[in-house]
């Protein structure tokens, strides 16, 4: 399976980023090949709807799960409709979170926030 993380930079020491839609990049980890790749988040600079576009980018990587500290309503709508599961990250290390996920220790993210910038509030 493939797991996507919002990350602050495209490098080995990348940290999990606090925002999903506005993250500078995504790290996509393939549990079968145990390889990871970086995808630029072209949604980060969007005026609005960043969460929707970022979720689309992540889906286009055939992602099965997202691990993030939080997720906005619109992004979650897209991800969940596509059957992607969203897990709550613990700490900033991608490696630690992959390990925790493999061991089944991560909780599903249930607290979806309403989004920022006046959009996404229902």
């Amino acid at each position, binding site marked *: 399976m493939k797991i996507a993380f919002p990350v602050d930079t495209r490098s080995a020491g990348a940290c999990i980023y606090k925002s999903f839609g506005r993250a500078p990049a995504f790290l996509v980890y393939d549990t079968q090949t145990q390889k990871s790749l970086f995808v630029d988040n072209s949604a980060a600079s969007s005026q609005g709807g960043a969460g*929707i576009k970022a979720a689309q980018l992540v889906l286009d990587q055939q992602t099965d799960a997202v691990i993030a500290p939080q997720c906005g309503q619109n992004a979650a709508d897209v991800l969940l409709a596509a059957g992607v599961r969203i897990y709550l990250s613990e700490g900033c290390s991608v490696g630690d979170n992959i390990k925790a996920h493999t061991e089944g220790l991560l909780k599903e993210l249930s607290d979806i926030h309403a989004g920022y910038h006046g959009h996404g509030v229902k």
Partner: protein
Amino acid sequence: MKIAVLSGKGGTGKTLVSVNLAAAAGKAVYTDCDVEEPNGHLFFKPAITGEKEINVAVPRVDKDLCNGCRKCVDFCNFNALAYIKDGLLIFDDICHSCGGCVSICPEKALHEEYRNIGVIKIGTSGKTIIATGIMNTGESSGIPIIKGLLSLDHPKDFIEFIDCPPGSSCAVMESIRDADYCLMVVEPTLFGTHNFRMVHELAALFKKPHSVIMNKCSVHYMPVEEYCKENNIPVLVRIPYDPLLGSLNSDGLIAARENAAYRDFFTDLLEKVLKEVLHEAAPHS
């Protein structure tokens, strides 16, 4: 003639000023563009003569025709569309009703439907025409309602006072776009000064002639006075911090109609405003 009344923050007295100026003018239009929380009608209590529903277009997809090419998703600058395994997801709140996705779709799988976001109510109070925009709770943009309000036809000899939303965002820009003049109501506090500077920059950016009305004045508040002086902004009046005015206002009464002294005060202010507007308009006419 359209005069926009604006301020950087809420609670400075935009409605007080625009309601009382319109009441003092009599043959005037009071247009409430603060569509998230319109309150001018609470003072005028107008007899409603007409209503206009405001609807906006949103795309809808015919699943049988959509082949998942995603041209619409890529086209939408607002990111209102996403394509997932089951088909197209449409976010109505994010959509700006530009119609681009519908016209770009090669399969003609998209069409527009209309959804209601609010209403405009038109009424009269004495000789004054009252136009109020009311946005439905939960909507994120009142711009289409403001556009509707400012495209209403009114008698040519009526002065229109536009009660703007607070702040300096898109909704304020839309409200002042066609205005001939901007009246900026300033509250003499540090917060008021900061936000006043933001609307002043906006009025200057739009190249609108403008002046200042200070409200709730007990002393000359130097940060505002100095800013106006440095930027050559005329201060038309300093409305006193008067318990009588406050209590008339909180009872939903129009001071210019209820109280002789305030009738004179706002009639004088109206004359000053009109003199400024005509003076500013003269070089261009």
